[in-house]
């Protein structure tokens, strides 16, 4: 990355935001976000990661990206994974083993059904949208 000027930073932020907004509304792409903090990795998040990548590959599902993130806070149900697919509520899954990962690909991503017994609640609301607006 080249050194940013103030304007570059602002442009980059707007560009990334637009990209994300497009991704959210285009109805085409999906995301699988895997909690890979120390707790998640210790509980087997890497195996889940690999299983997602493999199973998505197998199905030719190139429109779904697999990403890592930090701890979601649900340490009792690691590995945790958030699945965002168009037309479905963003869903957090807990205790996602490689088997559960494959099930999520086939049921949630392909068939549009939640995978019972592994759904967890999102721990908190997102404040980022309000950050940009500043104090109210």
């Amino acid at each position, binding site marked *: 990355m080249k050194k940013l*000027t103030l304007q570059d930073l602002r442009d980059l932020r707007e560009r990334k935001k637009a990209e994300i907004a497009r991704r959210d509304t285009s109805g085409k792409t999906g995301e699988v976000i895997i909690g890979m903090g120390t707790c998640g990795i210790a509980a087997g998040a890497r195996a889940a990661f690999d299983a997602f990548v493999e199973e998505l590959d197998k199905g030719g599902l190139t429109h779904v990206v697999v990403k890592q993130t930090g701890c979601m806070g649900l340490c009792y149900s690691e590995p945790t994974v958030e699945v965002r697919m168009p037309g479905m509520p963003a869903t957090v899954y807990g205790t996602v083993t490689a088997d559960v990962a494959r099930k999520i690909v086939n049921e949630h991503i392909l068939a549009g059904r939640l995978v019972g017994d592994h759904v967890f609640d999102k721990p908190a609301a997102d404040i980022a949208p309000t950050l940009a607006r500043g104090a109210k």
Partner: protein
Amino acid sequence: MAYKHFILVCGGTACESCKSGALHDNLVTAVRQNGLEGSVQVVKTGCFGFCEQGSVVKVLPEEAFYVRVKPEDAAEIVAEHLVKGRPVDRLLYKVGAGKLSSIDDIPFYQKQFRIVLRNCGLIDPENIEEYIAREGYAALEKVLFTMKPDDVIEELRKSGLRGRGGAGFPTWRKWVFSKDVKADQKYIICNADEGDPGAYMDRSTLEGDPHSILEAMTIAGYTTGATQGYIYIRAEYPLAIKRLEIAIGQARAAGLLGENILGSGFSFDLELRLGAGAFVCGEETALIASIEGKRGMPIPRPPFPAVRGLWGKPTIINNVETFANIPVILLKGGDWFGSIGTATSKGTKVFALTGKINNSGLIEVPMGTTLREIIFDIGGGIKDGKKFKAAQTGGPSGGVIPEQFLDTPIDYESLGALGSIMGSGGLIVMDQDDCMVDVNKFYLEFTVDESCGKCAPCRVGGRTMYNLLVGISEGRGSVADIDQLRTVAHAMNKASLCGLGQTAPNPVMSALKYFGDEYRVHIKDHKCPAGKCKALVTYSILAEKCIGCTLCARRCPVNCISGARRQTHVIDLSRCIKCGECYDACKFEAVQRG
């Protein structure tokens, strides 16, 4: 055909006991009867928390949250909400009057509110662009180009932010001290030593959102006139270290660290310093000594590091969580932050919930949330349906909070008044099976091990208290021991050089206050009611109750229970290791603990 609605039913163990299985089946039936099976999916989920509120049901995508739902309510939820689109008002969860009302945009049932953990679990921590997209480095931008150092301090003052490393010192004051000293060099240090047993808030923050710390430290540099920062992190945190290294590399490449940041003329750079993981090195003066390459031992304050710190220069040292709040405060304003929390404690606090709790994990709640909400609404209550006994905050420097204070709104002052401290955020939940003497012994053993040995009150006093506890736990205690514990504790508290020694007696003192009877039973009756002090416990099998089911014999890890099927079993006490497995296993109350 794709589903339009999803009904989530809590299937956690706590709710199983209140018939969520039947509720699930009734919902499925009701959905079928209304011909909705093609458009509504009923799903069993993990625990939502809120277990005191009975079965919990959530309807997506509209996020309607129902509590205390009974199996017979299923038909109404389906008929009203899903068929007619009218949520069932009487079952909807409602927030207690006025609480949280200062925070907008928070779904009405969620007790958590994330400022510190805003990006954890959302962004890829190894990708600076994702951080930037979520207003990352926007606070730095605002500070460098539109604010003077005094403006930053003013926002921090208005925010009321206090240090999250334990002591709760107002952050703005510390920054003013450093800013007002004239010096050719100043430093910013982030304290990521995190040595309390059971605490991992800072590790998770660094692993999940490393750039937020870099941004805040750079702002601290601009505000106080420092150009160099250090993150002091324990070597046992390899993933956090790796992500910080990646973040620092990315920030440098993007010109967000280094010379002339964003063309503002301000320069600031950062390095990591790895600690060997001694608890005392989290104490700020010991930490500074450690960075200087000396042995990590505290020195008396004042002078405070803000005035004379690293290499004798003014040094701001703040905790990870303290720093993580700062970009948000500067973006949303000090007044906004100051509107969250209690009169003396603003913003949120991150806790690592561990121990005998269903939903152990990392949580962030507004100051003023009660322990009951944390443990039962968020934490999902006590494991295996057991009874809550106490919660320990502040780790080895804190104390226990018993059941009668579960409704205390948490802030620095209220926890202090109860004889505990806020601490850095470890929150360990204990149930009926935990013994206070045993727990206290554990913490004192830790502080004795971790004492640097420099001053006698801590070195000798800690050992003395520990030995007394061992005596009590082995049936050698006397009533006079309690007075002696108090005397030594007082001396340690008054005369120890650093916080480690000063606070080491806190767990014992608070346990004596709330669980004095348990100590006395150990001393006078030579009994440990919770069965944890092994010298005071013996297990035996009552012949008249034993039906010879063999369960205990099969569970015993050392095979010291003999007896054939349908015959009375006997424990060979000479080989028994007092693990209690047989006691928990027996379904006929034949195994006695005495």
